[in-house]
């Protein structure tokens, strides 16, 4: 993978990891709300999800239909080894880039 994933993809991938096998659309959205405090629209969840699927960072698994969803199946997401590797790479890059930057608080930074 020559390119890094986008920030949204990163957030979603981490959320899926955190949800441990219970990651489907609604849950992912709720978890993001808990972590970040923003209510994302479904469109902005599905788009990075589709990209992740295409990049084979996550796998899509069809679940059972539930009455709550009008008899429609859930689709769970699971992070693939590729996805984990991508995350590691990204994290390493993050640390490299942030190292050396000591203080970015607004008061002193001027």
């Amino acid at each position, binding site marked *: 993978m020559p390119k890094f994933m986008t920030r949204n993809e990163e957030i979603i991938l981490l959320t899926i990891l955190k949800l441990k096998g219970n990651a489907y659309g609604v849950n992912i959205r709720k978890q993001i709300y808990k972590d970040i405090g923003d209510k994302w629209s479904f*469109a902005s969840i599905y788009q990075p999800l589709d990209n992740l699927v295409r990049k084979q960072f996550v796998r899509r698994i069809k679940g059972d239909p539930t009455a*709550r969803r009008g008899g429609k199946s859930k689709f769970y997401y699971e992070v693939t080894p590729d996805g984990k590797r991508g995350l590691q790479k990204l994290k390493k890059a993050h640390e490299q880039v942030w190292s050396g930057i000591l203080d970015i608080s607004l008061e002193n930074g001027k």
Partner: protein
Amino acid sequence: MKRIDLAAPRLSEWILRILFSQDYYLERSGDLEETYAELVEESGPFRAKVWLWFQILKLCFGVFRMNIVWRFIMFKNYLKITLRNIRKNVIYSFMNISGLSIGLACSLLIMLWVHHELSYDRFHENVDRLYRVVYSSDDGELYGTYLPGPLAPYLREHFPDFISTTGFRPWEAKIVFNNKSFPSIGSYVDPSFFSMFSFPFEKGEPKAAFSHPNSIVITKNLAVKLFGRDDPMGKTVSYNSGVSESIPLTVTGILKDIPQNSHLQFGFLLPFEILYDWMKTWRNKNVFAYVLLKKNIIPEEVNQKISGVLKAHKHDNNLNLHLQPIKRIHLHALGGGGRITYVYTFSMIALLVLFIACLNFMNLSTAQSEQRLKEIGVKKVVGCSRFQLVMQFLCESMILSLLSLLLAVFIAVLLLPSLNSMLGTQIVFKWIPNLVLSIISIALLTGVVSGSYPALLLSSFHPVPLLKGNVPFFKLHHRNGKLTEGKNRIPLFRKTLVIIQFALSVGFIGCILFINQQLHHMRNKDLGFDKENILVLKASREFLEKASTIKQELLNHPRVQSISSSLLRLDTWESSDFSSAFSWSGKTKEIEGLIGQNWVDHDFLKTLNLEMAKGRFFSREFSSDPTDAVILNETAVRIMDIKEPLGKEFIFVPGSPNERKKTIIGVIKDYHTESLRQEIRPMVLELGGGRNVYIKLQKGHITETLSYIESKIKEIVPGEPFDYTFLDEELDNLYKNEQLLGHLVRYGTLLVLLISSVGMFSLASFSIVRRTKEIGIRKLLGASGFRIMFMLTKDLINMLLFSIVAAWPIVCFLMKKWLDNFAYRISLSVWIFLLSGLMALVIALLTVSYQSIKAAAANPVDSLRYE
């Protein structure tokens, strides 16, 4: 909690179902519904609904954006493949694109021309209410536009239907300022002229322009010539009409230059008050009359009211007045026909050329796409959907056709100047929405139609036989089961295209041959007088006053053979002084129609080398000739049906105060005074002479003689401009329209031949490539090169013969109609038909011969190894 309340609205489900494929729909719809249900419980159905729709809107946007991105990426791929294909078959692609672009360029140019022709006189604000008054005889045989001078004021005073009327009397005169004199054609008009026609003023007030009679309004063009950069307003120029003393006139207005698409063309305008008395009588017909109708007046009703005006005022008993809309003047001749026929003809040519070019394009691109069956097979195997294939082929052919459109515009821009010089027009390339739209849609349509064949048909095949090279496609054209035979024949659709193209080529060649022959016939027909080496001058009044001195001086030069003059032009037939009324002693029957008239001097016969049939010409030995002699032409004598015309009395305008009696002293052999469209009409000559001077020169050293004549004239009449023409050139002008037709049909022929040759060339090479193996095997089994060439061209020759036969009757019909315009015309000879067919055949064979010879001469081993 009821289940129903929690279900998302139906419509949202439906939208999602459209946006996403099954799995994704299930996921998205399920997720949304789940969250929606929670929201309903938390904050009520209204807020939940708002939220839901917001979500769906965002999803739609996402899908939409993705689609565009993917389309664009696919399009990039199509473009790449198209460019690769163009590069792979450079020659065919080049021919294909250039063929279509030539066709498009040609029709673009013709459309521009047609647009220009149709735009004539449309710039007047009141164009729908502006009319010209014209007359026609009771029997409809005779019609004309020259009317008596007092008619326009009379109509204005006596009929309430007109807002204003104006006369228009063109006059060739000289405007002199500071000893600089410029000849120009202008006109006498009424002051209301400016309120009727929208010729914008550069300087001056339209209403005040003619407030006093000694005024003149000049165009900017003339103003620049006369005054250079000075302000002409208020300056006094001297106006020399050639028939009376010079008059001083004050410039009261400058008009912007008259646009080319106006049928009224003039360099200056004068008020009618200056006009000579002899033009102001009801007896003469030499002024145009224009009227502006009031709003909501039906011209037919006005026609009824005014039709008898001429009859009431003079002895003209069979002429009726009626109105002609000015927007029809340029294109529609009074007796029917006119330039509009050319507009139709060339629109037809444009359509045909475009049609051929489009057919060609389709033909070639379909032929080319058959070379790509393997590509289609591979694409299908790796999972290309049919829709994508269709899109690919459509995109490809549309890219090609748009490329040709670009090239076409380029070609048209390049060719426009030469077209303008050929037609004498000033058409510019400008944005005409209808035209641009139609040409773009034609190009796109061509692209779509030619792309749809491979797109729809070829994409439908199963990939396996395509890849095996066992092409199912060729079976489609031959249902008789003889597959081996049928496999290599040219499909019927393509055959028809070739036949149509070729028939058009034959038709064009035939037409141009006939037109050329008729033009040649007209130029070389014996007109009854010599037209070679005769100089034509327009004399001024000063010139005529010193005519005898000039004549003497000029005749001193050894190369000036003789000099003569006439009042009216040699190439017109006018009867300006009187109407149809004439009589003669011993008159036995009434004569319908007019007699043409001219005043000529003693040397007229000698200078133009005319011949007498009976009697003598005017002679200086007879002192009574100026007052008492007339000469008739043979046609006049025949119509009058007099056995012994000599010595009989000829009476002009019998029974009126202007009655004149003269003696017939001779009969001149018929000579043509008009174009050969007209039969020779009766003429009567009187002794006189006038502005039209003819100088017969000896052959050779023309420039030297001309400079001698010029210096002599300048010496005797200083300031006289030396504008000359030669008689044969002047006569050629009579056939301007015919020559134009000839030019255009010639170019049309060239284009059609070019395009269809391109088509034939590429088509032949395609069918030969397809038969490479067959040719190899035949040669291996002992077929001779000639035999193979014959085999390859046999189909073509058959088609050509068929189309030649189809083209002949059409040519015959068209040319017969065209030749009917001419009183003196060629007959439709068989050899021209044969020649046109032969020429087309030779061109076609030459086009395909290169490839068939190459194929026939090729080493069979190479052809068998092919693939």
